[in-house]
């Protein structure tokens, strides 16, 4: 049925948006790093999956096993080497934000430059699991369904991890009040680095999965960063579940707008929705009150 088609494709798109944003939710929410280079890592992971698929015939699902640990390690190292000096010298959270914006802006150019050098600026695309799947009378692409499904799974798993485990609780403590965390024996730097790395693993997962159906090139990182920023802020900083809900809402809105309003307004409605939600809830859907 038509409405089912629209809603389902909207939820899938929304899941993909959420997947793209989840890593940033951790990196910014916990480690307090406004990582403007975030999208570059998405693209880097996409390229990795592309190379592994076209050169070695390795499926992107398997490529996840390579990309995620590698990205975790890389991002963890980036936090320890590049970010910790900034954290140490920041006199206030605002100062850290400013510094991290400047530093990750530089990082953005470095990563993009490396990708450009290796792959050039041309579009790259491949097809994997582009098979139709029937769900409640609607036909969807398996690869997109998989990406969206994994987004939900990861969000739930992460939320459970953050809520139910000791490490997760420590991470949440760092996220809520980095200054007070050491008072209860939490090594803030270690946990922040871990969370940053974990965010890196997530961004790699998103990059690998979306490469199955998106067309990308080395210059497209900023598009992903901007999308992720919107989703993270709309959901409320530091809230993984919020990012999921925000993503789903945006995807649904886009799909409904395309079907019932005017296809040219899909992104406009997205942004309008984002602004409206912030006006009603100034710290996002599930964000805590402003400090």
């Amino acid at each position, binding site marked *: 049925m038509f409405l089912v088609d629209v809603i389902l494709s909207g939820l899938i798109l929304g899941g993909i948006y959420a997947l793209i944003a989840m890593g940033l939710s951790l990196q910014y929410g916990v480690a307090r790093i406004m990582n403007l280079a975030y999208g570059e890592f998405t693209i880097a992971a996409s390229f990795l999956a592309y190379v592994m698929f076209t050169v070695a015939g390795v499926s992107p699902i398997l490529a996840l096993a390579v990309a995620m640990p590698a990205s975790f390690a890389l991002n963890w190292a980036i936090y320890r080497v590049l970010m910790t000096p900034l954290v140490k010298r920041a006199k206030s959270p605002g100062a850290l934000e400013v510094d991290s914006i400047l530093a990750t802006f530089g990082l953005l150019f470095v990563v993009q430059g490396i990708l450009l050098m290796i792959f050039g600026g041309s579009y790259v695309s491949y097809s994997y699991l582009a098979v139709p799947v029937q769900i409640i009378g609607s036909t969807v692409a398996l690869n997109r369904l998989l990406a969206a499904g994994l987004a939900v799974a990861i969000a739930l798993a992460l939320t459970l991890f953050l809520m139910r485990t000791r490490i997760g609780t420590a991470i949440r403590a760092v996220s809520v009040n980095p200054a007070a965390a050491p008072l209860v024996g939490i090594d803030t730097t270690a946990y922040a680095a871990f969370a940053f790395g974990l965010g890196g693993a997530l961004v790699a997962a998103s990059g690998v999965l979306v490469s199955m159906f998106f067309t990308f090139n080395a210059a497209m990182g900023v598009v992903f960063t901007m999308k992720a920023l919107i989703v993270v802020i709309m959901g409320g900083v530091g809230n993984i579940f919020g990012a999921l809900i925000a993503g789903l809402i945006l995807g649904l809105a886009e799909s409904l707008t395309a079907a019932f309003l005017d296809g040219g307004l899909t992104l406009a409605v997205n942004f309008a929705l984002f602004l409206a939600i912030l006006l009603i809830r100034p710290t996002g859907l599930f964000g805590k009150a*402003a400090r």
Partner: protein
Amino acid sequence: MTAKDWIVPLAILAAAVVLAPLPLVAGSYWMALLVNVLMYAVLATAWALFSGPTHYVSLATAAFFGLGAYTMAFLGEKLPLALVYPVAALIGAVIATIVGLSTLRLSGVYFVIFTFGLAELVRQVVTWAEAKYGGTVGRFVFIDVTQQGIYWMLLGMLVLVLLTGFLVQRSRLGWALKAIGEDETVARHAGIDTTVSKVAVFVISATFMTVVGAIMAPRWTYIDPSIAFNPIISFQVLIMALLGGAARLYGPILGVVPLAILFEILQANFPNSFSILLGLAFLVIVYFVPSGIVGLIDQGRDVLGRAGRRRAHPAE
């Protein structure tokens, strides 16, 4: 105002007088570079008028710049040129008032991304409206403004924005902004009308940005929403102002000039490794110039002051 109070305005005017005759002697290439520097100097200084003291980081620069560019595209051939700029200023002021009032409850990173989302919303809506009602997405701007003309207009705008900033800083409004930047709740309790203060300066800042957009549009012959409302403009202005130091009036210019020169050197000599080198340069700057260039100057002053007679005043 005492005699000392006239130093800064006179310095600004003196600098303008020195810079004004340049188009008569400098070649076209240097003029192009200077136009670029001036554009960002005005935008960054205007940006810091609001975002500097209040610490509300705005990414809406591109929205107002684009509005100005579109004003020129629409009205440039219909009105005498001299009228287009004030009309652009007016449009910018009106939109900025609406925007300013709508963001009052937001703060911190939510404010930042809100302004970004706003700029993107404007871009999307203009694209859609143009396509649906205008029958075109791009607009040709065949207005006869020479590079020299653009240079002089931008120079004039720079003088204006610096003088405005100087006056605001020394006024009650400026003092109110600083108080808001320190602690908004306290400021409100101290009797400051934070709403009026914030919106007023936001409007002043945005008006300058809009006029700059109107000035620059003829240079590109053709604009469409992705060109006029390019988010890169917002980010670049932010970076340059933060680099220079957004707390001082002349801070952003100190960020714009070195960065513009850096961009140019890298672009001209290493076009194939531009990205990587620029990124590395940024990282170096962030790690070795932690308080912005203004911070460097303050440190320099501190050192000199200590080496000399009494201690210099601590930096802000």
